[in-house]
């Protein structure tokens, strides 16, 4: 009687565990120091990461959730179609994301397709991720230059303090990007320390706020680049509707600012 062959090569559980620990540890040790640490893996953070990593910048994205992509999976009202205004569709084209015209100047794409392509583009460019990792504090040097972040496991924050006395750890980098959306966590931390004063995002709804987000994207404090909706929080810009063109273009502008600054250094 013939012996039935396995489809998969037999590997013991311990080997699986060793493979996970070893690969994670090697990457983590390497990325304890990076060129750019991006806090927040939503569309603007992914776009910054993708663009700078393509130019050889060593980049780590810290994301508090298990999943990467932030709100880019869905559009307004939990509907999984995302919209971009002209010229945001050019980035969709560049990333190979199919889209269709809704009305003049407005384009619509499938959220899952757009988001997964953007994540893949960032991965392909060489960006590494630390997901389930939450931003805790900033690392500061002379002149309050931001040059890193203190992070912890996300679940630590979700449990009662007395159970989880787990100290965070620090990661160093030449630049930190705050792409944490409306929370603007990194900027807020600088505010807590009395280094920066945020304004909080305005309540008015103005169509042009997408332009304003891109216009104000840049270095808000030495070493700290702000992109995406964190820009609106930092500068008190008006709210905007559920369109993502500004997130992609703000990410691109943030990347340009970093690349310019790295050239000067």
């Amino acid at each position, binding site marked *: 009687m013939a012996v039935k062959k396995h489809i998969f090569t037999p590997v013991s559980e311990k080997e699986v565990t060793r493979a996970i620990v070893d690969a994670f540890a090697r990457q983590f040790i390497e990325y304890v120091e990076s060129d750019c640490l991006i806090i927040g893996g939503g569309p603007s953070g992914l776009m910054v990461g993708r663009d700078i990593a393509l130019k050889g910048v060593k980049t780590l994205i810290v994301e508090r959730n298990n999943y990467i992509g932030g709100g880019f999976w869905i559009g307004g009202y939990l509907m999984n179609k995302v919209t971009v205004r002209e010229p945001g569709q050019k980035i969709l084209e560049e990333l190979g994301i199919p889209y269709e015209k*809704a009305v003049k100047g*407005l384009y619509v794409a499938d959220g899952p397709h757009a988001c997964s392509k953007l994540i893949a583009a960032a991965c392909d460019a060489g960006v590494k991720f630390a997901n389930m990792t939450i931003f805790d504090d900033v690392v500061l040097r002379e002149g309050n230059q931001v040059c890193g972040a203190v992070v912890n496991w996300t679940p630590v924050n979700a449990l009662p303090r007395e159970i989880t006395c787990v100290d965070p750890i620090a990661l160093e980098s030449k630049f930190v990007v705050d792409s944490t959306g409306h929370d603007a966590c990194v900027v807020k931390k600088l505010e807590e320390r009395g280094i920066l004063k945020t304004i*909080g995002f305005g*309540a*008015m709804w*103005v169509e042009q706020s997408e332009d304003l987000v891109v*216009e104000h994207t840049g270095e808000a404090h030495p070493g700290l680049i702000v992109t995406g909706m964190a820009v609106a929080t*930092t*500068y008190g810009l008006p709210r905007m*509707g559920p369109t993502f063109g500004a997130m992609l273009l703000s990410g691109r502008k943030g990347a340009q600012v970093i690349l310019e600054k790295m050239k000067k250094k």
Partner: protein
Amino acid sequence: MSDFFHPIPSTIDLFGEGDLNGLDITQLGEYLEEKTHIPFRRRGNIYKRFSEEGIQVAAEKLARVRVRDPGKKYVSGIPFQAEVDYEKRRIRDPNWKIFGILYEGALYQKIISDLIFGSRLGLEHCSILFTNQLFGTWDRGNNRYHARVSLYGFPSLISITGLVVAPAKPKEFYLKKQMGTLMEWLKEEYQGRFLDHGDLRMTEVLKGYAVQALFFYLTGEPFCEDRDCRLFNSHWQEEVLHSQMDGQYEFCPRHESILKGLRERR
């Protein structure tokens, strides 16, 4: 003439700030001239003769008068460098298209007044600035800032963007927007019932606002209670369109008679 508390201006000076998409300044000036017999002058972009130093000073001032939170009364603060840089780019580009920042109206007007008049009082001409930027004033009734179409003074400010944003659109429009209907679809559905950016009716509508500015200069009272008169202080887009385009007459008998008197004096 007892209706006036101020001498008739030698000219009506029309200034611009940013891209005045949809506004034909010459046509508007000619209208004012026809209605008042006061000559108009196109004074162009207010920042056109600025030196680099002047741009820096103006940019810092403008960045300081942003309304940070429409729900809180303006508090002065030190602006971010990014905000000053934004204002510099805006000043340098005479066709600047981006708007959305809400400026504190009275402080914005003071900055513009200093830019136009310097140390002079500037009362010999009726000066009107048309801008694509947004300004607001604090409403003590509901404790928040509201965007405005116009702010009358020396100079008077009239915001083209304010004309699109400030007067309320039909109520159903907001209900549908709240339910997530895309702005572009709403604009199609309610086409014609409110003014939009680049609207072909913009020049015609703004003529009435310019006359309001002139009445403020001459009498201190820019408005009229008659909703058919172009001096009506509209709060809804449909009121704007009615009083400026579909009213029973251009000006109510009282204001028409003041304008007639003005023409006869010239």
